[in-house]
């Protein structure tokens, strides 16, 4: 097991390296002079001396190879740069934005697990009945509705018309306690959980049906076990391992990818920071946030592989 973990950790190094390289070049092929873009938004005339100063500060005057080497060196040293927007270290900006994103991810995951998995199990158990058709149809519909649109509609109905929930913004735990924080996140969490609920329902259902086809299920039935025991004890346990991985993937995706939900509800999370930095042409910040999100994703993946291996030791990874 230890060997597996170490091997898996080492396999992340090339991917990390590729991600760093990708981010570096993506930020460098932006047409036009980034310094001029930052200072004048690409429209206004800017004092050349000022541009020169910023170019120097950003290290843009060096040859591209040297820039690349310095970039990697700085990242390894933990010096990810300072934001052009507020002159703070980029990491500090990210940390300030982490709470809403983290809370949103957790809240929305809890909702989708609590609804999606039972739905999937019931759907598989009552396969090809009206209940199954209803649940699978609802799941397909859930996957088709744009999350941001559902969010906006919820803002209108529950925020404006019924006044049940705040229309936008997030109450920090330090300000209003956990209860208020969750309260302010209810609508965004439901809006972003919609897709996960649907996909989790479908995934759990198909995994259950897959497992139920196995020989050992037939054996369990043949030896006269009651159906519920076969279903919940023998089948469910084996079907859940891939489901857990699926949940992990959606967590990893949400940590970096809830840009749209955060924009709809005006939550100052990491996704919104990524979007805002892009709009503001705050390249060091954008670079840092993409890298950060990618690193979270890569390590979540490793963690998932390890969990999967614990849950299902038969699995071999190459």
């Amino acid at each position, binding site marked *: 097991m230890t060997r597996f973990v170490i091997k898996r950790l080492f396999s992340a190094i*090339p*991917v990390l390296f*590729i*991600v760093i*390289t*990708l981010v570096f070049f*993506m930020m460098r*092929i*932006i*047409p036009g002079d980034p310094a001029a873009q930052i200072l004048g938004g690409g429209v206004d005339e800017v004092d050349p001396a000022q541009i020169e100063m910023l170019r120097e500060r950003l290290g843009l005057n060096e040859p591209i190879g040297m820039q690349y080497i310095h970039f990697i060196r700085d990242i390894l040293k933990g010096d990810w740069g300072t934001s052009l927007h507020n002159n703070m270290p980029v990491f500090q900006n990210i940390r300030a934005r982490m709470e809403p994103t983290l809370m949103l991810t957790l809240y929305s995951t809890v909702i989708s697990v609590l609804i999606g998995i039972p739905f999937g199990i019931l759907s598989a158990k009552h396969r090809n009945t009206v209940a199954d058709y209803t649940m699978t149809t609802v799941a*397909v*519909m859930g*996957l*088709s*509705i*744009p999350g*941001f*649109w*559902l969010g*906006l*509609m919820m*803002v*209108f109905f529950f925020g*404006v018309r019924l006044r049940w929930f705040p229309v936008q913004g997030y109450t920090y735990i330090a300000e209003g306690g956990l209860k208020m924080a969750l309260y302010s996140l209810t609508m965004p969490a439901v809006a972003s959980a919609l897709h996960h609920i649907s996909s989790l329902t479908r995934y759990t259902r*198909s995994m259950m*049906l897959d497992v139920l086809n196995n020989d050992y299920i037939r054996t369990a039935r043949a030896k006269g076990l009651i159906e519920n025991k076969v279903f919940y004890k023998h089948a469910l346990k084996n079907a859940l391992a891939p489901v857990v991985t699926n949940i992990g993937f959606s967590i990893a*995706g949400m940590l*970096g*990818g809830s*840009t*749209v939900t955060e*924009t709809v509800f005006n939550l100052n999370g990491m*996704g919104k920071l*990524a*979007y805002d930095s*892009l709009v503001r042409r705050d390249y060091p910040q*954008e670079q840092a946030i*993409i890298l950060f*999100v*990618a690193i979270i*994703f*890569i390590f979540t993946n490793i963690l998932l592989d390890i969990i999967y291996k614990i849950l299902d030791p038969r699995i071999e990874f190459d």
Partner: protein
Amino acid sequence: MEKKKMKPGAFFRRYIRILVAGAVLLFIFCVAIFAPFIATHDPDETDIYKMNQLPSEEHILGTDPFGRDVFSRLVYGSRSTLIISITVNALAIIIGACLGLLCGYYKNVDAILMRILEGINALPTILLALVLITVMGNGIDKLIICLVAVNLPGIARLVRAQVLSIKEKEHVECAKACGAKNRRIMFKYVLPLCYSPLIIRFTSGLGATILTQASLSFLGVGMDPHMANWGGMINEGKAMIFAMPQQCAYPGICIAITVLAFSILGDGVRDVLDPKLR
């Protein structure tokens, strides 16, 4: 399993969902093709005297913050939606299949290409698309390139996995023994066996691409803002959500119906081509 001849009733009951989805899609395609005849106004015609109007006889669904006719914009919006999602998925499938074939077939290519694709995969879709589109600038052609790039890794991995298992099959070995060149084996003996997963991926990708594109337009990037598109309409109506939620509601409903029809069709295609996933 022996094949039984199905009664017309049973056939209808079994495929009713696919038939309905197909009919809806046919309708949307017709709307897109005959948009100039269906639309009541020029979708880009602004009129500052008629901003944010409620539905009336002249404007069936009212007007938007720029005084443009919402109904006509919805009709024209179907065009960009369909063009983008179909082109993106077709291109991504073709390029992705080639990459996947190369990866599955040549070990050295695999080592490099797969790592790069894995790297791209580590970035969240929306974030990657956002950065790419910012790098390239707005425009329908650039949006297509960007969405293809986002879809590539998944398709390449799918084909690669298929190729790795197909490569070991007897008919490939046989072809090799007969002296067939690599290229011939790849395209004649390996690729055809990948067709059904690729078709499944194509149909299921259509809806997903519409959603991604709508999210990008909602964030105000990707499409040329003047060109009528559903995501952009939601973005423009966002400011009016308190007073006139219908400006956001209609395009969202259009997106949901189109994506739903594509998803049901995709599920249907999957059931037909790969019955064990049912």
